[in-house]
Each structure stands twice: as C-alpha cells, then as structure tokens.
C-alpha cells in the first residue's frame, strides 16, 4: 500500500473556547486550535503528540464534526465535512470513526457488550439482528475480549477490556479512517502490542488510515509514518519519526524527547 491521495485533509482549522464569568463579565478565551493544517494519505498513520491541553482531543472532535470548528475546512475523501448537511454527514460518519480517550464513560451504561458493539450497525440499519450479533462476537474475538462476557455490562469490564471494547465498536462499521484519541494509553504492554498488531494487520488488509493521538513517543516511533507535534493549539513540527528523533526542530519537541523515560540510562533520548 503506497500512500496516495489524501484521505483526510484539514486546512486552517480554528477553534476557540470562550468562557464568560457571570458577574465581572470577563471573557476567558482558550485557543484550542490555531490555524491547524494536516494531511493524511490513505493507508498511512499520522501520530499526533503533544502535552495535555495542547488541543489534540479538540482536533480529533473537530475532524469527526463532534465539535464544530469556528473556521477551516475538513476534507474527507475530497468533500468538506464542515459545510455538509446533517443528513449527508450522518451518511458519511461510519467511514470516519473516533475512539475516545475516556473508555469508562464512552458506553451507554445500560447496554451489554454485544449491544454496544452492534449499536453502530443498528444506527446505520445494517444487517439483521443475528448478523449484527455475529459481527459483534467476531470483533470481540479479534480484540481479545472473552466472548463469554458478551452479555456483561460495560461497567463489569476492567479498564483495559473497556478500551478494547471501544476499539471493537469503532471497527464495527468498517471505517476507512480511525482516529484514536489516547486509545492505547490505559493498556498494559502485551495487550497494547496485541491491539497494535491488529491495527497494523487491518491497515495492511483494507488500507485503513489512522490518526493516532498519544503522548507515548516511543510507541509512535514504531507505527507512525509521520509524527506531528502540537503545542498550544498549533502544529509546530511534522516529521518522519526517524527525523524527529535525530534532529528535532522545535524547542517543545526537544523538551518532549528529553522527558521521555529511557530504560538503563538517564541521558536524553538521542537516536531512534
């Protein structure tokens, strides 16, 4: 799979959160996205790193139109999601899925695991009940969830299992692009590896495109084609992982690399 035409392209995206104090009338502005532009070719992986509060999650929500950007364009397969009608958007949504950071609250607390995974199919009116269930069980198996736990509620799963449940749900609709917002951060390493293997396998098979949001630079270096560094709402640097590690340009990137824990020695991480 060669990276070809861009699947997801974001141009000059802006989003400002305004908070007004009740009595003083003072306004607090947070510029979460400041003229952000990104391009992700089909079948590739872009990693987005940056400290907390740098606007990564806002970018993820804006890309999927869960938050409306103030200005800018979001091209998905060549059409601009930001100006799309609600109906058109609803039809497009299955192809662009988001995995949320907080897997504990991302599920309807009244649904069982199968229902959770099958719900996107119900929403999109795909398949019969039996087919949906079969697909849900299949996905549970793929993501390493115990199939006999299908009837359990989300609250009865462990944190790592919930994370996998979220990944399974996002895969139900067979999206073309997957945005993972810190989706692997709660997982222990063997499971993380298992999920990464699954994701890479899917990428190889159906040319899935990933926007991978994380603060784990080490993991990003392994799987990303490119790494974008975000700082205070701006993308300050975009490089291949090898270049990023060997010659980081922006001061913030250098700080991030310096803060990376390295086993065995306490010097800053130099080579990739």
């Amino acid at each position, binding site marked *: 799979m060669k990276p070809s035409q861009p699947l997801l392209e974001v141009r000059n995206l802006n989003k400002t959160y305004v908070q007004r104090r009740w009595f003083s009338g003072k306004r607090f502005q947070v510029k979460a996205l400041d003229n952000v532009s990104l391009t992700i070719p089909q079948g590739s992986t872009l990693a987005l790193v940056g400290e907390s509060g740098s606007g990564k999650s806002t970018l993820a929500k804006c890309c999927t139109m869960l938050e409306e950007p103030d200005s800018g364009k979001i091209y998905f397969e060549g059409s601009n999601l930001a100006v799309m009608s609600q109906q058109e958007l*609803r039809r497009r949504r*299955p192809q662009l*899925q988001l995995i949320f950071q907080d897997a504990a609250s991302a*599920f*309807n607390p009244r649904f*069982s695991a199968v229902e959770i995974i099958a719900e996107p199919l119900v*929403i999109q009116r795909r398949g019969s009940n039996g087919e949906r269930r079969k697909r849900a069980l299949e996905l549970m198996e793929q993501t390493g969830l115990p199939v006999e736990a299908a009837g359990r509620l989300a609250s009865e799963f462990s944190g790592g299992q919930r994370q996998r449940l979220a990944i399974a749900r996002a895969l139900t609709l067979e999206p073309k692009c997957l945005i993972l917002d810190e989706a692997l951060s709660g997982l222990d390493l063997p499971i993380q590896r298992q999920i990464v293997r699954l994701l890479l396998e899917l990428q190889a098979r159906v040319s899935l495109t990933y926007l991978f949001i994380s603060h784990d630079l080490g993991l990003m270096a392994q799987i990303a084609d490119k790494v974008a560094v975000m700082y205070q709402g701006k993308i300050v640097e975009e490089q291949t992982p090898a270049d990023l590690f060997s010659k980081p340009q922006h001061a913030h990137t250098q700080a991030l690399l310096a803060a990376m824990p390295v086993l065995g020695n306490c010097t800053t991480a130099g080579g990739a």
Partner: protein
Amino acid sequence: MRFFLCRIVHGAFLLVGVSILSFAMIELAPGDFFAEMRLNPQLSAETLAGLRQQYGLDQPLPVRYLHWARSVARGEFGFSFAYNTPVAPLLWSRARNTLLLTVPAVLFAWLIAVPIGVGSAARQGKWGDRIASSGITALLAIPELLLALGFLLISLRTGYLPTGGMLSVGFSELGWWEKFKDVTAHLAIPVAVLTLGSLPILVRHVRATMLEVLQSPFINAARAHGISSRRLLFRHVLPAALNPLISLFGFSIAGLLSASLLVEVVVSWPGLGPLLFEAILGRDLYVVIGAILFSTMFLVVGTLVSDLLLFAADPRIRAQ
C-alpha cells in the same frame, strides 16, 4: 424478591413508628375535642368528664395507643368524635374523591412535562428552549392558591365551568353520561391548577437530567456513528436520564393524598383536605392520625413502586 419482602417489613415498621410519633405529638398539643365544650354553660363538668371517659380520653397514652391499635386491626382506625363513626370508612370515601382529583393531575403533569423537558433539553439555548424555560419559571413563581383563585374568577365571570364542589344539584337523577360530564366539569379547575402547579418542577427536572446525560461521552460516541436525533434522545438519553425521574415519580405517588389539600379547600372539593382541616381545628384526634397514616402508606407504596420501576428500567440494578 427478598429485597421486596425486606422493603415491605420496613414499611410496616415505618407505619408503626409514624403512628406512635403522631400520637405523641398530638398529646403535646393542649386541649382535646371536648375542651371547647367547657365554655358551654349548659354542659356540666361532670357531663364532660363522662364523655371523656366514654371515649377513653381519660386513659394514659400507652393504653389509648393500644386501644387504637386494636381498632386498626379491626380496620376501623379509631373513632371520629365529630362524625360519630369509625374513621376508616370516613377517610376512605374522602380519599377516593381526592384520588379522583390527584391521579389525573399527576398523569397530565407527567405527560406534559416529559415532552417539554426533552424538547427543551434537545434545543438548549435556542428560542424554543428559552420560551419554554421562561414560561415554566413564571409558572413556578405563581402560587397554586393564586392560580386556583384566578381560574375561579374566570369561570365565575364566564359561567362556563362550575366554581366549586364535586356534583351538581340533582346529580342522582342524571344518566351515567351526564353524571360523567358533570364530574368532569367539576374536576376541570382543580385538576388544571394541580397540573400547572406541579408542572414546573417536573419540567425542570426532566430538562436538567436530560442535559446532564446529553453531555456524556457515550452520547458523543453515538453521534459519531451517525445516529438520528430521535433515536439518540429516546434510545440513549431518556433511558439514562430515567432513574432520578422514576424516583421523582415515586414522590408524585407519595404526594397523591396530600398534594391537593389546599386546592380542595379553595374549590370546596369534598376530599381529604377539608376533612383534615376541620379535624385539626377541632382536635378530632383519630381522624388526623388516620389521615397521616394514609399518607404514610402512600409514601411507602410510592417508594416501592419507584423501586420496582427502577428494577425494570435499569439492567445495572437487575444485575446486582
């Protein structure tokens, strides 16, 4: 199942406790039913003492309580001094009238409140929500009493609806359809007042709980799958918002007997309200205690019903 047996036993204890407490409280209040007769020069002190003895009021409190408890076991709930009959049939016929008033009022209030609350939560901050919310706030600020008086004034001026009571003169000669129409016409004003009176709180609760759920991440997740707004509201948001509303509904049931007391007095509805009002003023001891006990029973039943509904509505509770 064990849980519900537990709840019923719990409820029984509550009833006993409430009855003892109400006995003790009323004992604290000065005077009894015969106190005012003292002013009557035609009744001698001996006659009054005889009356007290006859009704057992000269006995110490625990003896009276046991005596009363025995009459509860017989289904009489004590004896009314003013009406000279056992309390239970008296209360029951009045309670039926009160329920005739409050049951439709509660149903209407919920049937109106849920759509308004859901609708305005779905359009938070937009014009529809603002209009509904300010209307509801205005309604909240108007006391029920004023509403009742206003309605009475209007119907007095227009002569369109009867302005009080429950039945017209000559009710017994009407056919069943006319009877139904007559009672409905008499019900209209008090039911409207009660519905409007309880509406604001319900709407606000529905709206607030819906808004809270609308902000949770799993709603965002459903949106990301391209859900329609109707399915989102009724399949995901409303069920998740249901628990506090069910508890509130339990309180609605608990309040069935007492919510309308004031309104009943104003429109002279022959329910528990006027009866209780007079009984308190006249220190008709057992009628008061009987009414309190009735309300407590509704409270017990109301919470039990809401627990059952929660059990039916929430798989997490069922799982426990």
